[in-house]
């Protein structure tokens, strides 16, 4: 179905939004200059479960510069309370610590923050339960898991195959709470005027946000406008509105005509804007002595919240990654007194692949096989889950190309034997995978603005990934013009409908709509259109999606150095080789891939939100105590990709690149640490104390 002739596509066009961003003139949500803004500061619950009995707002109300104080006792009623994440201030119940229970609105941000601290809250406290345990008697099976996948699957006779297996790996892997922490905090400006809402929001999807918020407040979608021209990262956490949006809109309704600014503090971002659930993953791999896998079993325990269910699809990767006639997966949830977990950086695939790819490394050791060879021996000809052919897999090429470029061979499989002075040295490999998704509900508008010049409009967003640039390149090619002739318009619900920037589906979905609009435009108006003519068209459904196993794949390599004295871990280098379909822009692609790989390194070694179960909240609540990898942690990192075109994914022949970089990288790092030390650590993050034995 590839229909686009690449000219601008495939070139390393410099980011079109770069100059505005580095000169500070690109407005982010809270930076729009509106007249006479007011500032909002949330009041948060300091218990994890119970009931608010009183909120004394007298001192806050009396503070000079305070306009209003919202509490659970006097907030406006929402039209729809079915979304437990967004529903706040509707009663006096506290469901998790940090829950938004009020706010102060004031003339300055400082006054609002000060006065919020003056509000005294009394509670009837109830016993809370925030600790995930595989022994929890209340674990349950959700109806489905995120992205609509089945909760459990069984193919073949897994138990019999495991019983008869010549080699068995039977281990439990855990990943901790992790928080997305985009650089730009969640923030918005809400303006309520004449029964209509304008929201400047830091969001990954303006139309998706509008649908949620219009429902919440009982508004016609046409009375809600959402603007997001520049977004400083989201990593999933801005894929849907959260309760801070509810709060800002409630405040805006209290003071019609005044813009209400709300920017969460870094600490507040550990409370109310989503996070990755901890996962407890039990894997069993059965195999023959020569490394043919006969059975997979992947059972996951993870958490959700009492107010809303979110079920991370952690085990789905095991359903399709490698050949095996017998495969079983399951997900069980605990509903805890915690904030709602949500999308974070390849939800499902990321933690699931960590566990699967470390288990594969353990199987390679058990079978005395090179870990790359083990993967080659279990390469499936067709998608094991559906029986469909692959659209463009090429994992074997990723592994072999990577092995050559990384210098994988020769490799002594014996762990803990290579060193340089104090430092033990090891190498690790892992596979990557991420589905190629095209979202429904996309349309684009093309207008001839002058002879040979076009405005291309779609309500897409750029969350820092390069959308402004990549969509301009696609638009230029589908219109057969130079990129300079295209004026791209995105980030506004006034533009044609677009799906959320999530699931690595943005460029595929939006590009498909722009392609469809261009075709219709040329059909309607020819090659020399009169300025002023316009065409809007919707993206067609991709019929190949049902008939092909459509995924990106990759192979990641890491070299770990571990101090034999202190267990300190230094990752000397990382390399990823990816099968990613046609490349739209190699510069922004490389940024996304090495960014994802860095996040995987960060997951392997650093990231952990520590929940203190006595209080119920995350106590590592800033970027000094919640560690993400720093530059010094990554001396050498590179990403390569196969020259490729996916004939089935979309008209560009491309696949998404946002998330695959993080998938598998933590496993490559963990496997390298094992090879360096001989110590197999299965609980992330891996820190020096685990290697002190």
């Amino acid at each position: 179905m590839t229909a686009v002739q690449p000219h601008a596509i495939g070139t390393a066009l410099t980011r079109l939004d770069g100059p505005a961003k580095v000169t500070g003139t690109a407005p982010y949500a809270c930076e729009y200059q509106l007249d006479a803004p007011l500032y909002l500061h949330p009041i948060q619950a300091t218990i994890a479960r119970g009931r608010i009995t009183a909120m004394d707002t007298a001192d806050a109300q009396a503070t000079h510069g305070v306009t209003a104080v919202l509490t659970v006792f006097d907030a406006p009623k929402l039209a729809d309370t079915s979304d437990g994440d967004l529903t706040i201030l509707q009663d006096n119940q506290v469901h998790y610590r940090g829950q938004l229970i009020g706010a102060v609105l004031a003339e300055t941000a400082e006054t609002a923050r000060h006065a919020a601290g003056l509000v005294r809250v009394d509670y009837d406290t109830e016993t809370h339960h925030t600790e995930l345990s595989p022994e929890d008697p209340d674990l349950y099976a959700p109806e489905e898991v995120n992205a609509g996948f089945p909760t459990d699957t069984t193919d073949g006779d897994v138990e019999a195959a495991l019983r008869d297996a010549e080699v068995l790996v039977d281990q439990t892997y855990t990943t901790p709470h992790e928080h997305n922490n985009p650089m730009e905090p969640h923030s918005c400006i809400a303006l309520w005027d004449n029964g209509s809402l304008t929201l400047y929001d830091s969001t990954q999807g303006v139309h998706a946000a509008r649908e949620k918020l219009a429902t919440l407040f009982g508004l016609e979608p046409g009375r809600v406008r959402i603007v997001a021209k520049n977004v400083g990262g989201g990593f999933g956490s801005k894929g849907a509105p959260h309760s801070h949006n509810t709060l800002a809109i409630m405040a805006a309704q209290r003071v019609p005509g005044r813009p209400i600014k709300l920017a969460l503090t870094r600490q507040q971002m550990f409370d109310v804007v989503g996070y990755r659930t901890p996962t407890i993953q039990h894997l069993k791999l059965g195999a023959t002595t020569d490394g043919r896998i006969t059975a997979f079993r992947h059972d996951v325990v993870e958490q959700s919240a009492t107010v809303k269910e979110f079920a991370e699809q952690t085990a789905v990767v095991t359903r399709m990654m490698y050949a095996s006639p017998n495969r079983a997966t399951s997900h069980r949830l605990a509903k805890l007194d915690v904030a709602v977990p949500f999308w974070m950086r390849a939800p499902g695939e990321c933690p699931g692949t960590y566990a699967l790819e470390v288990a594969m490394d353990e199987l390679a050791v058990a079978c005395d096989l090179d870990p790359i060879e083990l993967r080659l021996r279990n390469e499936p000809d067709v998608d094991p889950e559906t029986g469909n052919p692959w659209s463009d897999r090429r994992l074997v090429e990723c592994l072999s190309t990577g092995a050559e470029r990384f210098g994988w061979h020769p490799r002594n499989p014996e762990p803990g034997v290579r060193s340089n002075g104090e430092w033990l040295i090891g190498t690790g490999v892992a596979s990557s995978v991420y589905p190629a998704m095209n979202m429904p509900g996309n349309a684009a508008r093309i207008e001839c603005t002058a002879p040979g010049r076009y405005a291309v409009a779609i309500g897409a967003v750029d969350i820092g990934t390069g959308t402004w640039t990549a969509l301009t390149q696609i638009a230029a090619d589908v219109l057969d013009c130079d990129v300079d002739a295209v004026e791209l318009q995105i980030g506004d619900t006034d533009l044609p409908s677009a799906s959320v920037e999530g699931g690595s589906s943005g460029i595929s979905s939006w590009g498909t709509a722009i392609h469809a609009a261009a075709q219709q435009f040329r059909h309607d108006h020819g090659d020399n259109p009169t300025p002023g003519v316009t065409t809007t068209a919707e993206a067609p459904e991709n019929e190949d999606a049902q008939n092909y196993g459509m995924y990106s794949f990759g192979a990641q390599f890491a070299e770990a150095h571990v101090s034999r004295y202190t267990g300190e871990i230094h990752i000397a280098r990382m390399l990823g080789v990816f099968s990613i379909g046609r490349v739209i822009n190699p510069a922004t692609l490389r940024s996304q891939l090495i960014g994802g790989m860095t996040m995987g390194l960060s997951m392997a070694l650093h990231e952990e939100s520590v929940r203190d179960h006595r209080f119920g909240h995350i106590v590592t609540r800033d970027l000094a105590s919640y560690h993400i990898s720093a530059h010094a942690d990554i001396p050498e990192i590179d990403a390569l990709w196969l020259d490729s075109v996916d004939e089935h994914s979309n008209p560009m022949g491309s696949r998404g690149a946002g998330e695959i970089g993080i998938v598998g990288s933590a496993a490559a790092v963990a496997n390298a640490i094992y090879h360096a030390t001989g110590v197999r650590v299965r609980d992330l993050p891996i820190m020096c104390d685990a290697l002190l034995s």
Partner: protein
Amino acid sequence: MNPFAYHRATSVQDAVTTVAERPDAVYLAGGTNLVDHMKLGVAETALVVDVGHLPLYDIDHLDDGSLRIGADVRNADLAAHPIVRSRYPVLARALLAGASGQLRNLATTAGNLLQRTRCVYFQDVTTPCNKRSPGQGCSAIGGYVRYHAILGASPHCMATHPSDMAVAMTALDAQVVYVDVDGEHRLPLTDFHRLPGEEPHRDTNLPAGALITAVEIPAPLDGAHSTYRKVRDRNSYAFALTSVAAELVTEDGTINSARIALGGVAHKPWRAHRAEHALLGQPAGEDTFTAAADHELAQAEPLEGNEFKVELTRRTLVATLLGLMEGHQ
């Protein structure tokens, strides 16, 4: 965050007399720690007296070979100073192991000494903390203690002092010079920071209202080799799980002098007197170093959850001393 008044001090004398009259006042220099605390509600002050611009930014190499470092010398400038780099490598390395480039550009010498613990419970006003609010209790006990003390703690506070610079200065027998309304005084750095005892809200023995004007470091010993090693959970912008500032003088393989301080393990930079004593006169080598480390850490009392820091500190000390010997050969 509270409303507060701001006064830009015109001189050291002006600063000291202003604060002497206002017990609710605090000094502001780089602001890298205090401003965070004001925003979080950890520090509630009515008057901020800015001393960051006062003429306390010279680094003087004195006639007796010692170094006098002005209180407002930025960490980045101190680390880059040729005399610090050549004569006090332990100090240069400690400075560069701390914080981030941006923070080191702002943070001052005196402010670094006076920074407060990064205990997560101290920094979160919704959790009890004896250091922030005496009598509330210590939330670290039974909680998240990865960065907490294994030496010299009390049942009232398990916090650690977060500085790297101060650990090196402690090993180097630095003196803190301060001024109050009675004039100029000196305090050995080893006596400057306190153990928590029953008054964990008191970090230091600096009298109320006193203003640090300089830190003085004696000349390094002849033939000394020194270094700083910091073990942390990421390679920059992370506080020490444990750190070692060490200086050795050896002659024909025998240790003639040893000065050692540990960071990340106590409420103050921990001068390892026991280890130093165990090293003196002994042959430099792994066995001696291990015995010295064991001797020092015999007094360790870790918490549930940070027991590993005893072994980690022992190994880090040994590796640091071995590294000094290797670099020396």
